[in-house]
Structures are given as C-alpha cells and as structure tokens.
C-alpha cells in the first residue's frame, strides 16, 4: 500500500527534526535532564533552556516572556484562562462571553462555570463563520468579567478579528482571552500590540511536541490556580517543568514563520481549493478572505461523508473536527454557519502543513475526484435532499 497522504495538520503535525533535536538534548544522562527547579548546576542549566524557550515563544507572539506560563497544552490553558479568571472574581454577578464555535475545551469550561453560577453568553457567528465585534460589544454588561474567543477556528479556519475585539474589551474594562492554538506561528499574532489579556498557545499544531502549551497572562491579570503545587509558574501552575517539551515548543516557535510559511501554505491551499472546485458540487466553508493558510473545509454534495472518508482511507483527513473525530454527531461549528446535518456530514477538513508538497496536493485532488465520481454514481438518482 502506498504511504498515507497526510492532510490532517489541523489535528496535529509531525514534529520538525530540528525540534526533535532540541528535545532529545534534554533527555538522557548526557543531556540537560535535570529538574529546572533544582538549585545545582545541572538544574540551573535546564532552567536556562526553559527560559530560552520562554523567550522564543514570547518573541513569536510579541509578549514579555516572563508573562508566559507553561501548561500541558492549549486545552489546559483554555481551562485555566476561563476558570482562573472567573473564579478569581468573588463578585456576586459574574458574566462570561464566548461563542458557539469555540473548541470544546472552552465550551466545556464555560459549561462548568455555568454550573458554578456564572452567567454565560454564547455569541453566534455569521454564515461565513465570523463573529462580529459589534455582537461582542452588545453582549458586554457591568457583570462581564471575560470574553473568550478563538483567533483561528480549527474546523473552518476563519480568522476572527481579535484586534478589534480587544479594543472593545479594553474600552469596557473587560478581560479578553484568545485561543490561539490554530493561529500562533501560522499568522501574525501581536499580543502586546493588540492588548490581549490572556492567550492560549500549543506546540503540536506547528510541528512541536504534543502535551505542551502555554498561557500568556498580561501583568496584573489575576487567575485562580487550576493545578496547585510547589513553585508554581507565575504563582498559578504547579508541577515539574518538562524541559524537553518546553525546549521543543521553544524551537517550534522559533522555526514557525507566518510570513514565509503562511504564504507557501496559502498557495497550496488555493491550489487545492481551485482543483476541488473544478470537480463540481463542492462548496468551501468559512470566509475565504479571512481564513488561515493551513485549513480548507469543503462540503461535497451528493455523497455521504462517511463513505467519502472511508473511500479515501489512504489519505489522513477529518470529517468535522478531528478532536471530535470518533464522535459521529455533526460539528457544532458547521451547524453554526448554517449547514444541514446532511451537508455537515458530507464535509471534510483538509489540513496543510510544513511537509505538504505540491505533488501531495495533486495526488489528493486526483484521489478525491475519483472517489467522488464513484460514490455519486453509486447514489444514482438519489433525491435532492441528499445533495442539500
């Protein structure tokens, strides 16, 4: 069997060999394996690597390194941002604003907070997947503590206008949390410049290791800890710092170049879309003018998505969001932009990455075209609802 074509880079990415090198240098007895919290020389050397990584990450997202705390990933960072910010407020009335297209780690955290008496407002996006800054402005009340919105949507790749939303939050004295798991390193992110208060980052979406992420916490933003322990990061996150994971994340952020890589991916993505569009009966989801370079979300009319996915089992892609791949229920994001369950069901997400070549895109298009034709023939004169 020919090797699998990997087009699921929005779910996770292969680790860059240069990142692997940085990681393995912190593992064995020959390397910097010591506990960065230890006072002795090896510990101090490990700590230096941790601080170098912090600096590299801060530089990439324009944030002061000392305000970046490491977590086990963006999932934990999102949990810490929402629960930490809301639980730090003892006020009677507490209000949280988020959207219907967030990652589960945000929506589930919001639901948990609702159980603690927090009032939660879920903003809708338009048919293009865009959440209007005005809807944020309109939703803010005197009780609003935090607004949480993602920068790039993991299913349809739409880029939300977090800079404008940050201005609004600032002017109303409300904190803004941005989930940048899909944007950091892929498109420009200017935390200090835009005045963002909290930002979730992860390494494995930009060719870094899984299981490491970070939360940027602007000075003077109080958070209640989620994970208590000795010598907590920024006073809120305990636990031994995993030097190799952190060094790997640092290297990944150092290597990620939105300008260069973004342009290359956007070109491949456009090639992919134009080629798929030529097959007919396909529609692209999410605002094309405001989409991240590595995600293309397409609905294929007249075929069952599960069948298309199965027919393309020599290609790694995902139906709806990969994070929810094993759960068959239709994507909440696709519903939010108005797709019927049937159409959501026949929608695939293509994720491009650093190791995606033009030839891969061409082979992908060829395979999709072939199976699409076969399955549409199979469906014969199926009624119109099968294609709408």
């Amino acid at each position, binding site marked *: 069997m020919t090797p699998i074509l990997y087009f699921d880079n929005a779910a996770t990415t292969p680790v860059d060999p240069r990142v692997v090198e940085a990681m393995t240098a912190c593992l064995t007895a020959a390397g910097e394996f010591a506990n960065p919290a230890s006072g002795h020389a090896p510990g101090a050397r490990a700590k230096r690597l941790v601080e170098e990584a912090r600096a590299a990450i801060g530089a990439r997202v324009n944030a002061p390194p000392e305000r970046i705390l490491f977590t086990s990933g963006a999932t934990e960072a999102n949990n810490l941002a929402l629960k930490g910010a809301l639980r730090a407020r003892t006020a009677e009335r507490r209000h949280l604003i988020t959207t219907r297209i967030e990652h589960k780690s945000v929506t589930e955290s919001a639901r948990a907070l609702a159980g603690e008496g927090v009032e939660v407002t879920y903003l809708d996006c338009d048919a293009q997947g865009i959440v209007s800054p005005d809807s944020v402005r309109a939703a803010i009340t005197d009780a609003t503590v935090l607004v949480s919105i993602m920068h790039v949507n993991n299913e349809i790749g739409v880029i939300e206008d977090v800079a404008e939303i940050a201005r609004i939050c600032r002017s109303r004295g409300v904190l803004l949390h941005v989930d940048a798991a899909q944007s950091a390193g892929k498109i420009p992110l200017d935390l200090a410049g835009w005045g963002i208060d909290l930002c979730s980052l992860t390494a494995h979406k930009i060719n870094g290791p899984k299981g490491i992420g970070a939360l940027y916490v602007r000075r003077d933003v109080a958070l209640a800890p989620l994970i208590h322990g000795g010598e907590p990061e920024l006073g809120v996150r305990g636990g031994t710092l995993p030097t190799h994971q952190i060094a790997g994340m640092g290297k990944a952020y150092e290597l990620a170049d939105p300008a260069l890589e973004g342009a290359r991916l956007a070109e491949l993505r456009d090639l992919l879309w134009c080629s798929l569009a030529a097959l007919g009966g396909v529609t692209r989801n999410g605002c094309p003018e405001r989409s991240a370079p590595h995600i293309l979300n397409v609905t294929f009319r*007249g*075929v*069952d998505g*599960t*069948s298309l*996915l*199965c*027919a393309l089992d020599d290609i790694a892609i995902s139906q709806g969001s990969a994070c929810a791949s*094993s759960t068959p229920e239709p994507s909440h994001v696709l519903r939010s932009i108005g797709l019927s*369950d*049937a159409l959501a*069901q026949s929608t695939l997400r293509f994720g491009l990455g650093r190791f995606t070549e033009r030839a891969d895109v061409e082979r992908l298009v060829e395979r999709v075209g072939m199976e699409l034709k076969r399955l549409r*023939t*199979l*469906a*014969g*004169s*199926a*009624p119109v*609802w*099968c294609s709408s």
Partner: protein
Amino acid sequence: MDYSSQVLRRFRSPLRAGVFAAEMPGTVRGEAEDRSLNIWVRFHVHAPGSRIEAVRFEIFGCPHAVAAAEWVAEWLEGREPSALTAWDVHAAAHALGVPTEKLGKLLRIEDALLACWQELERNGSVVDAERGG
C-alpha cells in the same frame, strides 16, 4: 471508524450497484429513505419468473449501508421472490459487523425490499411466477 473486511470489500466493489441497462419486463423497483439517518436506497429487482434473476441498487449512505445493500442483493439472486420479505437484517448486521446504532439504516434497506415485493404482487408477476413454476 473501523470497518470489517466484509464491509470494505463490498463497499469498494459493489458488483450489483447501478441500474439495469434496459427496461425489462418482470422488473420492479422499490425505495426507502431516512433523512435523519442520512440514507436513501432503491432496489431494482428482475424477477420475470419464479426466481429473482438479478438485483441492482442505487444508494446514498455510509459504507455499512452500501455493503449491506450489496450483501442482500447477492443473497437475493437465484432465490424465490418471497425472499424479498425474508431477509434477516440481524443476521446480516452480525455477519458484516454492523454496529447496532446503525441497524436503523439496514431496516430502511429492508423497507426498500418490501416495497419491491409489494410492487411484484401488485403487477401480478409473483402470481405468474407461481403458475409458471
């Protein structure tokens, strides 16, 4: 989603998928659908006499549904028309390793077969067959 080899083989090469090239006497059609289950299926059964000579189908649905349609089409060929009412959905589901939550789709396939059977009865070809036999 993991599929059994039984399902994959039939999904990849459903020999009886499609329609008959020409309109033939003794051929009936029956269909069924369930939008909530994302399935639509139509069978074409050619039973000019006491035997089902050939079966074709068109289907919009998941691999399990496609495989089940191919499976039953194969099973029907050479049997008496009454077999259209005798398909054991559960046995098929078991043989193909279809998860129970997908049984609903197979039941639509059963419905389509029953529709074929009723069509046969209506235009009397079953009776003819009985006589002819």
